[in-house]
């Protein structure tokens, strides 16, 4: 793999995002929603609140914050392949020496960086605000080490999962809205996974957070491999997969084999 080619894809994608009003608007509005709601919720909890109430509120807030890395990446990732196809740039792009892994990684990194940056920024603002203004009981739960670790580790890993799902949908469907909706839906099960910790169905601890993060990491790597296999140049260009084309032919070469 060529880092230069991946870098070229990331730079191009970033430039395009910056000039795409739809993406900019989504990236600006969604964080505001996710910033205000949890902050208000936590600030309204009185100091006299029971531990169970506090933990439930913090759990809900934590889950809401983890929605950010699940919801924002598909907005970008679902556009990644369909966007190229819609503006007629996919074929010229694929005629270059770029390998599909390079193309996918470049697209993924370009979606990952702003999504995770936004998610971390929202989390940081909420956490610091709670520290400065919310009751001590709430602050103690929010700043509980396993809680912080869960948030810090799960945010990028959930984002990566959502990105691969988004790219997979983008490579399979012809309409960006369909791809975005399906990608968001397909990403939600990962939230259920996170909610087990957020709502303390599983008692959070550092080893548990790390262990679950490792599981998510493995899932992300498997997702990358699966998406790479789904990325079929021939299907993207002609609407017919190489295998289908070859099945009725005299040989069974794979266009994907062209890298």
């Amino acid at each position, binding site marked *: 793999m060529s880092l230069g080619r991946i870098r070229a894809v990331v730079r191009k994608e970033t430039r395009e995002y910056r000039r795409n009003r739809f993406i900019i608007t989504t990236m600006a509005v969604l964080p505001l929603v996710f910033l205000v709601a949890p902050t208000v919720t936590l600030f309204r909890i009185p100091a006299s609140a029971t531990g169970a109430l506090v933990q439930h509120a913090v759990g809900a807030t934590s889950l809401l914050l983890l929605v950010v890395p699940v919801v924002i990446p598909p907005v970008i990732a679902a556009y990644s392949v369909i966007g190229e196809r819609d503006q007629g740039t996919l074929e010229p792009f694929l005629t270059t020496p770029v390998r599909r892994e390079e193309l996918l990684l470049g697209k993924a990194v370009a979606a990952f960086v702003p999504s995770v940056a936004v998610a971390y920024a929202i989390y940081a603002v909420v956490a610091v605000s709670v520290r400065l203004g919310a009751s001590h009981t709430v602050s103690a739960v929010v700043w509980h080490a396993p809680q912080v670790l869960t948030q810090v580790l799960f945010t990028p890993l959930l984002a990566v999962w959502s990105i691969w799902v988004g790219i997979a949908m983008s490579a399979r469907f012809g309409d960006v809205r369909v791809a975005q909706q399906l990608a968001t839906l397909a990403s939600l099960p990962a939230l259920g996974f996170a909610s087990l910790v957020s709502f303390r169905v599983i008692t959070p601890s550092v080893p548990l957070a790390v262990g679950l993060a490792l599981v998510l990491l493995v899932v992300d790597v498997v997702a990358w491999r699966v998406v790479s296999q789904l990325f079929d140049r021939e299907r993207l260009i002609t609407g017919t997969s190489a295998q289908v084309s070859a099945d009725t*032919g005299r040989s069974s070469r794979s266009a994907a*084999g*062209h890298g």
Partner: protein
Amino acid sequence: MEEQSGKGRTADAPADDPERAVEAAETAGASPVATQSERPALVVEGLTKRFGERVAVDDVSFTVASGEVFGFLGPNGAGKTTTVRTLGTLIAPTSGSATVAGIPLEPGNGVEIRQRISVMTETPGLYLRLTVAENLEFFAGLYGVVQPQARIARALEAVNLAARADDLCGSLSKGLRQRVGLARALLNDPAIVFLDEPTSGLDPVATREVHDLIDGLRGRGVTVFLTTHRLEEAERLCDRVAILNTSLRMIGRPDELRDRLFTKTVLVRTAAPLGAPEEVFAGVRGVESWLGGGPDGYVLTVSDPRIAAPEVTRALVAAGADVLSIAEARHSLEDVYLELIGDDVEARR
């Protein structure tokens, strides 16, 4: 085609020489003499591509010499774009083999082949929210071009777009976008440039500009594979043409195709019908048969117009005829095309 004006590059020269395009751009427009490589730029043997039950390209074989401008003609749906996509490693052939820029078209060679070729699709496929320079910078990065800024500047100079480098591609006219597409095709200093309907939808001025750019590529010795259904374009630009309609119908120089398909004829017009035309034309060297005698004159089938025309002139003068004109009948590439494709049922799919 043994000799071709050009920059002297060969198909087996390294395609990633960063200085090559620089030198070529500087000399674009000049007409230096080049010697072609002995190795063909393209060798295609029995190429077949099916999509399900539909045969898009059927058992196509041809060779393109290095430095040649090769026209690939055919009606819509004839398989031209499928052939380009196959040779460009975008889609896999169902059967057959090919060598592209000296590299066998096989799974695993895709990256190497794409490094040595450029494909300009029918629509230039530019990122409209990016500037001209940003578009080229992206593709230079994908090709791993060393010193991309210098290369981009020279590619833009080659297509006379240096002044528009910072314009958004979305603000350019279709003709200018096509020029940006051609500049992009020059970035990697390709051994072969595939141009798929490069003048489709362009006005005459923009079309002329694209033709001039293709001439410029020829001048630089770049092999050009041009798919088009504009016959006058092929006739003007191409050294050889292939006529395709799923399978290959004919291949050769335009004049060769004419010779193969049409008998050679000489048209004779006189002020008045000849009294005894059989006595004038019979026995004239090179004349095989004749017909006519009406207001359109006489059509003589000849073995070689260069021999027959002077002989016919002498015979007419000797017979006292008032000769208005004697001319060789010229068939255009369009005549050839229509002869091959016009009655073809497949062309009307």
